């Protein structure tokens, strides 16, 4: 379970998150939608400690993420994150990209790590690309590799930070299919996304972010099909 309590986050004088409360239960898929600058991506970075918070608390399975005593590297092992820019390691092959963390962080042997990596790459449909370097892959393939790389750590949670925003339109589908597959497998996920239709299909709950706060939250039916607040209605109208 991810518990976010009254989190405030500023970059210098600019406060981007202004007291967000949000709980994500085990097995739940929560989508965060909202305009740019509403703080939704920043919140994801705060969940696995890539960004510090100024006040409030974020707990993952009861562990305080921003506590000084927390072993953040250990905690990150169970929180996979996929970024907007897929961030492949260009000097490593696809297989090595996926094997790196299982080997160096989990201490698996080369054979064990390779087995895990090949499984995950098959899972995302890249089984025939394991020997090539990421630079030769399309954006969609690199993004699926990034998903496999995160999954190879057997995380309990997956965070997606606008995972399809940097992709050509015809490549979006293959990545969304992969995310949908994870949802069907029961993975607990937080998706920051601009794909409203996708969010409606795959999420248990949808949160609309505005000015660093959760402005409206509920089931996809409530928030996307029957939004109550005028700002939510305006936002949905602007993106559809």
């Amino acid at each position: 379970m991810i518990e976010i309590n009254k989190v405030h986050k500023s970059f210098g004088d600019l406060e981007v998150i202004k007291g967000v409360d949000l709980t994500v239960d085990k097995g739940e898929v929560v989508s965060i939608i909202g305009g740019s600058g509403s703080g939704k991506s920043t919140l994801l970075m705060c969940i696995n400690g890539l960004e510090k918070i100024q006040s409030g608390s974020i707990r993952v399975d009861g562990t305080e993420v921003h506590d000084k005593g927390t072993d953040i590297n250990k905690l990150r092992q169970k929180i996979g994150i996929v970024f907007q820019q897929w961030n492949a390691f260009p000097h490593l092959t696809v297989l090595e990209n996926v094997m790196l963390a299982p080997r160096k962080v989990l201490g698996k042997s080369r054979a064990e790590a390779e087995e895990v990596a090949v499984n995950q790459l098959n899972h995302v449909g890249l089984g025939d690309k394991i020997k090539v370097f990421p630079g030769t892959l399309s954006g969609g393939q690199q993004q699926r590799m990034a998903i496999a790389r995160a999954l190879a750590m057997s995380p309990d949670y997956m965070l997606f930070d606008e995972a399809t925003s940097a992709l050509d339109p015809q490549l979006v589908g293959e990545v969304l299919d992969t995310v949908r597959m994870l949802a069907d497998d029961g993975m607990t996920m937080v998706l920051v996304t601009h794909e409203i239709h996708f969010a409606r299909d795959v999420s248990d709950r949808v949160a609309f972010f505005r000015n660093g706060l959760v402005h409206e939250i509920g089931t996809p039916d409530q928030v996307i099909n029957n939004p109550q607040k005028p700002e939510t209605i305006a936002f949905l109208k602007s993106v559809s």
Partner: protein
Amino acid sequence: MLSTSLTMSDLLFLLHGAWVTLQLTFWAMLLGTIAGVVFGLLRALMPNASRPLGWVLDAFRSVPLLIQFVLFNSLKSIVGLDWSAFAVGCIVLGVYSAAFCTEIVRSGVLAVPMTVRRAARSLGLTYSQDLRYIVFPMATRIAFPGWLNVVLSTMKDTALVMWIGIIELLRASQIVVTRIQEPLLVLCIAGLIYYVISLVVSRLGARLETRWQEND
């Protein structure tokens, strides 16, 4: 017209000078690269704490090498160090190239995208694992062409050590010129030797770069 008084032993003398040039380049670059990697990492990863180091290295980058040779050589005599001219040459050239290598390493490390490093950390890699498995390999590829440039310019800068009494390629050719009075021919030969050395170094470097590029 085509006759020359250049003898075989003159040619061997030049080649011996070239060998000294190569040795100077090797030791200077060894010192310069090791120091440059250490200093460059400090400058990139701890920019504030290492600022004074930056000032010192700036001085070495900015003062003409010839002045550094003469100053260091005098300093050596004042302090009473019993170092050979060759050692002095290696150290001064090494420090000079270290100052350039530092900037090259620093820019290589800073050129590794922050987002890629974040992705590495998000997988649970520690700060030092991120450096070792992601930043160093990527920065090496970025910094390599710049480093190769320093090798070539250091190789040519070794010519300045003749001012502290070392007979390397250029000094050797001057000696031959003084004796046989055929500057055009001798300098052409010396230039050719420099050129061949550079060509070999840059070809080796280019080969390494293509091997890396096949991966990108």
